């Protein structure tokens, strides 16, 4: 019950923010979520026997969001610079046998949590960006719900018992099917939504590309979930945090998004490489 209520409250806020929020507000919201998730991630990483520089990592995350807002093309130098800063600081701050672990865990946190969330303002700034993000949210959420309910009722074959004992192949398949069906319904009801949102829609095999995109995002979402589960299990932790009532931690909520967002971005990059149409 708590889970449904939290979802009902968050979903409209997220959608409203996505479509009507000014760019600076979107960046701030993503930065806040990233910092919360990063804090949880760092706690989990530390539980495996490290001592990551918490405040430095968070500070670097905020700086990265600021740079991403102002000049996104500087993200590569900024990102790698952050990694080197972490390395150098850990060299002197951590005992020698922990330097590599502390620096690597912290940098991986920036990669896993900060980079995907920094893509949200960038995608939104593109033409029909908000619609593309909405599509991603629909794919991830419907996949999640389908996997949960079908997995509970029909789940038999374990997907990855070492990583996540609750997940089944039936649930995974249902997730895929659920995403595809939901998007198909949306495109059927709002045909202009798809053609406006994606350049490929106007190409001869546009529908096929669309299907591939949905499948890719869904698989990435499921993999993201498994990745986070593996990290938690390795640390002996069940929930990433207790911030959201009924939902565990922030990291738990967004873990599927963390791999799905880059996949959407790569799809947009590929689309732009092949599109002779104006950008």
């Amino acid at each position, binding site marked *: 019950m708590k889970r449904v209520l939290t979802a009902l409250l968050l979903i409209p806020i997220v959608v409203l923010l996505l479509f009507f929020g000014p760019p600076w507000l979107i960046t701030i919201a993503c930065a806040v979520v990233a910092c919360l998730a990063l804090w949880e991630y760092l706690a989990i990483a530390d539980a495996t026997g490290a001592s990551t520089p918490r405040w430095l990592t968070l500070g670097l995350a905020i700086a990265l969001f600021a740079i991403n807002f102002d000049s996104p*093309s500087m993200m590569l130098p900024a990102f790698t610079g952050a990694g080197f800063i972490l390395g150098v600081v850990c060299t002197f701050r951590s005992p020698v046998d922990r330097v590599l672990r502390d620096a690597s865990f912290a940098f991986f946190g920036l990669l896993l949590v900060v980079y995907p969330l920094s893509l949200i303002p960038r995608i939104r700034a593109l033409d029909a960006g908000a619609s593309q993000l909405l599509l991603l949210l629909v794919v991830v959420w419907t996949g999640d719900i389908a996997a949960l309910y079908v997995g509970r009722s029909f789940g038999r074959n374990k997907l990855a018992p070492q990583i996540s004992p609750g997940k089944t192949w039936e649930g995974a398949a249902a997730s895929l099917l659920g995403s595809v069906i939901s998007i198909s319904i949306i495109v059927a009801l709002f045909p202009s939504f798809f053609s406006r949102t994606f350049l490929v829609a106007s190409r001869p095999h546009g529908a096929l590309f669309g299907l591939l995109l949905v499948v890719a995002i869904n698989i990435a979402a499921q993999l993201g979930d498994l990745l986070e589960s593996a990290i938690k299990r390795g640390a002996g932790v069940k929930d990433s945090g207790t911030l959201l009532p009924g939902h565990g931690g922030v990291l738990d909520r967004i873990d599927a998004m963390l791999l799905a967002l880059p996949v959407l971005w790569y799809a947009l990059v590929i689309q732009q490489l092949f599109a002779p149409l104006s*950008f």
Partner: protein
Amino acid sequence: MPSPTPFSRVEELSSEELAIYRKLDPNRMPRHVAIIMDGNGRWANQRSLKRFFGHQRGAEAVRGVTETAARIGLPYVTLYAFSLENNLRRPKAEVSFLMGLLKSYLAAEVKTMLRNNIRLTFIGRIHELPKDVQDTITWASQATAGSTGTTLTLALNYGGRSELVDAVRRIALQVAHSAAPEASAAAVTEADVARNLYTSQMPDPDLLIRTSGEQRVSNFLLWQIAYSEIFITERYWPDFRGAHLLEAIADYQGRERRYGGLGDTLEEAASDLVRT
């Protein structure tokens, strides 16, 4: 006489204008007429008057010409009122007089424009003008935003090259922020450039009129006049009337527009050559 556009009121033309208008072909009316309003100063000097008087009469000429344009239902009229170079190179006293003239002109004319169903828009680096002028401009465009007839565009603090620079900057930013910058840069087209100009919402001018006989373009609508017919008259702007606009259109209708291709007559001759 058939009306060329749904919002024309040809019956309101003066008898002199009507006489010229009857000789025009309603199917070949230009959609967009641009005018370089040159000669206010020289007109005044000729009559041993001060320059500002020429500017004042120039403003009255604007009134007359736009009224005629609205009556014959010209969809777009663009007037080169004040250039970037004017702003920088004319004496400060003249510039502030022109700003004051603009404000009082707009304040007085908006009512007439609403009556003539004219929609007022502005192009140029408006944000570099004094704040009070910007406010008047915003008010005037909002007040006439609901008009469905002729769109009158005033080019203020405008420069063709600056317009292109602003467009390039916008496109460069879009390319830099896109998912694949190198691919986006290679994909920039003429349509993209046109879309980032101040005039993105209008068709290119069919006819460019310049008064006071000077044979140059003076940095006006450089990109947009690529295929415009140019009409130059010796008349100074304060003497320019609605009838003269119609004469310019008559001259325009006598021309053959080829857009870089072959004309009808030349096409026959060329295909003859190829056949033998």
